[in-house]
């Protein structure tokens, strides 16, 4: 499948946005740490209707912040974009609180917490915020979530011959679940993926690897590499690193039990100054 990346959004590593993240990756700066308690301030929920803004959980606001940046840099109306939301675990905070409440004698679970616990909460709030009635899917595959998110979005863009919004995001579990399922950092990546056409800056060819493909891409900087391994969404960092550096690169994403996903990134430097 021949695709292009038309827009990028990023939340995580205590960086403001994709512009800051790209500069840090390019410059070899270490990623920062974003404590869960401080995450709320970094997120933009201001474009939700007032009721939804009050109700939306942290994972929803995390995903939406990356999505806004991606669709704005792509210059596309988000209402026209099919949505692929991929998260290894969705709203870890809501899930933990629900399971804890259900172990109390009263077994109280609030209606809002209940509807926020569904895996498609983020895509639901996003579609309400932007008025999108296009198909929205919410998928998961544990540590391979980023790979299947890319695959699903690539198939939708290619077969539907239209741009698709992909959100890949993870929120760390609070105590005590974080010990059973550690997720190192909150992180979200928004990508607008479109069928390839002439003049694309960021070209991606994507398909299942066959036979002994290349080994999984790693990052040179040890702290970024820790984030790649410690957050399921971090598996996209080698692709983002290649984009940030403007270096064509052949990447390989592990998909347990298969030969994995081959992602061939090519940058067209001749047109890069037109980008953004």
């Amino acid at each position, binding site marked *: 499948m021949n695709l292009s990346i038309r827009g990028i959004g990023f939340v995580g590593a205590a960086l403001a946005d994709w512009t800051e993240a790209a500069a840090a990756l390019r410059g070899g700066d270490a990623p920062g740490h974003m404590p869960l308690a401080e995450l709320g301030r970094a997120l933009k929920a201001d474009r939700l209707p007032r009721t939804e803004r009050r109700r939306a959980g942290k994972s929803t606001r995390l995903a939406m912040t990356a999505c806004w940046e991606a669709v704005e840099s792509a210059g596309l109306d988000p209402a026209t974009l099919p949505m692929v939301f991929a998260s290894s675990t969705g709203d870890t905070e809501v899930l933990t609180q629900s399971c804890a409440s259900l172990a109390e004698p009263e077994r109280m679970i609030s209606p809002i917490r209940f509807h926020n616990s569904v895996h498609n909460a983020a895509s639901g709030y996003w579609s309400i915020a932007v008025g999108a009635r296009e198909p929205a899917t919410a998928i998961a595959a544990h540590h391979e979530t980023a790979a299947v998110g890319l695959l699903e979005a690539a198939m939708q863009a290619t077969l539907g011959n239209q741009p698709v919004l992909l959100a890949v995001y993870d929120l760390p579990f609070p105590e005590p679940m974080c010990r059973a*399922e550690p997720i190192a950092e909150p992180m979200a990546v928004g990508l607008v993926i479109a069928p390839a056409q002439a003049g694309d800056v960021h070209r991606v060819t994507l398909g299942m690897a066959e036979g002994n493909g290349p080994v999984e891409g790693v990052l040179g900087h040890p702290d970024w590499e820790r984030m790649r391994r410690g957050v399921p969404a971090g598996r996209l960092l080698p692709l983002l690193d290649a984009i940030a550096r403007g270096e064509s690169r052949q990447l390989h994403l592990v998909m347990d039990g298969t030969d994995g996903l081959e992602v061939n990134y090519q940058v067209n430097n001749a047109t890069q100054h037109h980008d953004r």
Partner: protein
Amino acid sequence: MSMHEANGPLPPLALSALTVTTAAGPGKGALLDALRARRGALAPCDFLDVDLPTWIGRVAGLESVSLPSALADYDCRNNRLAELALQQDGFGEAVAEAVRRYGAHRIGVVLGTSTSGILHTELAFHERDPATGALPSPLHYATTHELSSAPRYLRKRLGLAGPIYAVSTACSSSGKVFASAQRLIAAGVCDAVVVGGVDSLCLTTLYGFASLELTSTGPCRPGDVERDGISIGEAAGFALVEPAPAATNRGESSLCLFGVGESVDAHHMSSPHPEGKGAELAMRRALDAAGRRSDTVDYVNLHGTASRVNDAAEDRALEAVFGPGQACSSTKGWTGHTLGAAGITGLVTGVLAIEHGFLPGTLNTERRDPAFSADYLLANRDMAPRCVMSNSFGFGGNNCSLLFGRAEEAA
């Protein structure tokens, strides 16, 4: 990797093997018998120590299902339900045949679920260390509660090596898996896909739907003027899908998925658009994808949960797409609302209607809502539908419609 031409509707898929296990019993036959005899499988809630005044559709005997010892880490109610379903209707054998035809790496698994094995974690929270608050260790989160635990279990259990993932869009999950399978095949990633859904009883959904005052105090009565909410059920169902010509050339599979329609409401997180605008769009997109007119649909298996607003919105949507008088019914009165397995349960029910020549009339419903315009069946009707639509709608305003029927009906 051969690729379907972009921008056209995706080609139809053969439904080469099918199975479902619901409260009616293991396998398609148990559901067929219950539908024919109009014998519901709902009962007053006796799940764990749940103290809610509601009825549920519980699959008997899951407590004694065991998984192969090599896959012991996957043990939880949800994967036991998957295992029980896998043993029915020759499903495993059909997949083994497909492996011989295509190779294990060419077969993927995409399953829907809303809560996967969350019950495993819920119960672990009852056993927290009183001093430290720590959960029992190891929790086996990745192989039980994690959303792709069931598709991963199936891949190992069936010896497959293609891509796997979970679709979790609440109650539309196991409808939407068919769209992903169509794409995996059309994009040349897979030659066949095991799709379906597994969702099992847990505290989150029982107490969660109760908190929204959406659970009925008796067996649910879809479309009844006095309907008062849903009955929660559990189910697992699977379909083996492959390109339609492949099955036809072998002289097999007379059943075909014609098209899938997906949409979202963009309206509210837990209530449907009152006019059913998103549902209408999903049904129209399924018809468009199949290249069929609405008057070729003989029967609609409704989402029909018996929630007051959902049933009303779905009727509005049906009238917009089909005009008044469309033959339809809800079969939630037999199985309960099986949430992330509702899509596959509806599809198998529709296939039973096609194969056995009857439309199941809605169970438990005495007086249909006079505001409804559809032909809301209350008794079984002898009629062999050629083309059936099945709806599944979920939280987040997420909608999916499946259109299927006899292969010779394919447009």
